């Protein structure tokens, strides 16, 4: 069964533990500037929104790469950049509609979310369950449960 990152911005406090965990997993240092998941703060609205790669089924980055450096991990569903093959041409960063694959000047390669090989550290680190790692075919499960609970409460109130 494939799993997917499921992001609920309502629960995010903007603490950046996800960015810290991501950077530590991929660089061995605590360095939010190297994180592949980013939390955006909308100050005047009081909103925090984590954002990362959705692992498109027909991934534009993968299609655009001229050296086939981006491959599909059949087990996790992640589109994974092979550093050994990436030439840093950045075409994938242009192809991605969401901006979630980015060039890293320090390495001369691009970096994107690889789901940490099936154990995404951002989800583990999130203290509020704003980021969870769930059944890829049921990312709507929590929303459905919430609505079901409301419906159930409504029916009980009527009865």
């Amino acid at each position, binding site marked *: 069964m494939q799993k997917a990152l499921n992001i609920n911005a309502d629960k995010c406090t903007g603490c950046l533990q996800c960015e810290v965990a991501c950077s530590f997993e991929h660089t061995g240092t*605590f360095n939010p*500037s*190297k994180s592949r998941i980013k939390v955006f703060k909308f100050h005047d609205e009081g909103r925090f929104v984590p954002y990362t790669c959705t692992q498109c089924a027909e991934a534009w980055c993968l299609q655009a790469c001229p050296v086939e450096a981006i491959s599909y991990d059949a087990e996790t569903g992640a589109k994974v950049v092979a550093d050994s093959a990436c030439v840093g041409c950045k075409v994938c960063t242009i192809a991605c509609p969401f901006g979630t694959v980015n060039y890293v000047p320090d390495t001369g390669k691009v970096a994107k979310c690889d789901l940490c090989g099936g154990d995404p550290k951002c989800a583990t680190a999130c*203290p509020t369950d704003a980021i969870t790692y769930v059944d890829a075919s049921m990312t709507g499960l929590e929303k459905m449960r919430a609505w079901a609970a409301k419906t159930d409460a409504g029916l009980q109130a009527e009865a």
Partner: protein
Amino acid sequence: MSWTRKLLRVNLSTGTCTAEDLNMEWAQKYLGSRGLATKYFIEETDPKVDPLSPDNKLIMSTGPLTGTCASTAGRYTVVTKGALTGAIACSNSGGFFGNELKNAGWDMIIFEGKAEKPVYLKLINEKAELVDASKYWGKSCWDTEEGLKADLQDPQARVASIGVSGEQGVKYACIVNDMDRAAGRSGVGTVMGSKNLKAVVLRGTRGVRVDDPIAFMDATNAGKAVLAENPVTGQGLPTYGTQVLMNVINEMGAMPTRNFRDVQFEGAANISGEKMHEVRADGTKNLVTNAACYGCTIACQRVSTVERTHYTVKDRPQYQGASGGLEYEAAWSLGSECGVDDIEALTFANFICNEQGYDPISFGATVGAAMELFEMGVLTLEHTGGIELKFGNAKALTDCAELVGKAEGFGAELGLGSARLCEKYGHPELSMSVKKQEFPAYDARGIQGMGLTYATSNRGACHLRSYTVSSEVLGIPEKTDPLATDGKAGLVMAFQDATAAVDSSGLCIFTTFAWSLEDIAPQVNAACEGDWTVESLLECGERIWNMERQYNLAAGFTGKDDTLPKRLLKDAAKTGPAKGKVSGLDKMLPEYYEIRGWDANGVPKAETLNRLGLS
């Protein structure tokens, strides 16, 4: 590791920025942040220096855990000689500035001298540059932060800046970062202004390393689990913020009201954390959400709006968005201390404090003192420029807030702080302060340990040097009777020492609602070289406390300054559980000196200094 082992020295007089190696011998003795920066400060400055002279220095310092994945590990400290107090000042702030400084590769920045014209420091990793800030001089903290990010074309930059109040010498100006986090107390922003330093803008991409990553992940994960399971850090603080205390403290009769004339506020429920959750007529709430500083798994911060129809914002769209909401101390100082129970007015005044960069505790308490002077007829409409400065007048409070923000007219008078204001008008006894710094939100008659805390605090009256409220009110780590003086000397000393260690690590003191040093020591030990245990941290804290004390004595303070205003020592509480009580400071202070290893005048004995390696 986890020090970067580098400090940046910025000489504002000559315009030079120089990298230096961190003194690692000192780091092993004073840890970081508050402790290590104070050591540098004391070694490099004359204790008699005028706080606003170019010879005063100002240090921004991270701790060894700052920028790591430990919960709350984003703190930094500003150390200087305080403009408000003339004592050692160390003001601590969260947000995202500290971790960015560490990520840029620096443990601390030492500012010295004075720039000829306004400048800001641009620090991008190892590249430091002083830049002309004339276009930001006269601007608020909010405009400065937004402007600098736009100039750099980098929305991910972090900014700490002063507002007009800091430029114009308001004695309790802050240094504000991330729009609504602040190194708030003692006038550290005033010192920054006196140096013509408007802001620091940072970007750090180098990464923070720890000594033993595997042990560090284990220790920090264990710590996070403790915070999540604790009722205060896991539920109370995320839900209500520090405002969880408003109704609790009021009921126990320890809520200073109308310049400490009363100890209970009839309007407390209207300005409480619960009130912030109430749905307004238009369907919105004061509280939009809670929020976190860097790495914090507690998330106590309030994000609020002012009701759009409220007189303070209805024609001013720039104040209709969400911003930092009321913490307990601000809700108290702006609220019950001034007798105002209009939570929208308090929220607005708090916005102005953040926007214009000054401390809401000292501001509210100064307005409270001024209201008493006004009601006595000492201050008149002529002095106030027509403001009816009566207790309970919300409009007077918000008008004063805007005036202090500009340091204009009566705002400049209020910018003196309560001690200088009351002295000027012939009633020094009405300033509710110690070492010229205003009290926070706990009455020393109803919570006896806090009286000793205030009297002996090295930075003037302050709750964050030894928060015995934890024990006396919340029962953490064990319950003590708030009305008793017995045992409080030992309690205060234990809290003071532990707090100095926590402050110096780069962690937030709020973790200690759930964590003891037993939880913290393994995190510090895994992150840092050296052998860090509960015992070594406590000794480090005691060393820092005594070092700060030595500085204040050299600066001219004596044991006579370890006291409280007459009102708390002579005028009994009128209502509530503490009715009939005054502060028992006279019973606690001699015992405190004794267990500190100080003589009867409050001077550390030679053997105490020898034991701590301070002689």
